[in-house]
């Protein structure tokens, strides 16, 4: 639930999602759900020539289970806030 809330706060930011098959997709975070499935808008594949499949795709849904990384803007994280939330969650768990 912590990361679900965290990603909800990142909606509207530009992120790069790297999948387990090494495909990386940059886009604006449109929405996220409890499974950490991600919907991106204005998508562009990083290294587009290597992956011609998605040329005509501008919005996509990415299943949470295939995400390896979500790369965020450096100012995308309020580290103190996240730190506190994690401590609270750890205490409660």
């Amino acid at each position, binding site marked *: 639930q912590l990361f679900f809330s965290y990603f909800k706060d990142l909606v509207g930011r530009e992120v790069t999602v790297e999948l387990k*098959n090494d495909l990386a997709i940059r886009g604006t975070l*449109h929405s996220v759900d409890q499974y950490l499935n991600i919907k991106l808008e204005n998508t562009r594949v990083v290294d587009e020539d290597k992956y011609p*499949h998605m040329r005509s795709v501008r919005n996509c849904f990415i299943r949470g289970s295939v995400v390896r990384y979500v790369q965020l803007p450096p100012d995308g994280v309020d580290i103190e806030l996240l730190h506190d939330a994690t401590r609270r969650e750890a205490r409660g768990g």
Partner: protein
Amino acid sequence: MSNWPNSDDNLFSSSLASYLDRKILILLRDGREFLGTFRSFDQYANIVLEGTLERIMVGNLFCDIPLGLYIIRGENVMLIGERESDEKELPPHMTCVSVAEIRKAQKEELKGSTTRKMDFLDFD
């Protein structure tokens, strides 16, 4: 308006419902690519795809295989993309070939990659 169960019934819902009846592209975990019209889904991301085409690309060759109505099990789904206009559809600088030719090309590619993997054994 809709009977589709949504956890957040707002504009930013991370639901596949917004893609219904549109042309989509599905990437599966095994690397396969399917195109078609998105007709149905559920909480596991099981998908019903109408007019399914499997698009196979090997090097500069590609082939679309018509498959009809498909149900795809959600656990295999990697990504679902909403396709824009058809003009950018056909891969640029790529030649459309027959199923037989693309299968041959796939076999060649597989052979090539297996031989490369075995190189470390230093056979003569």
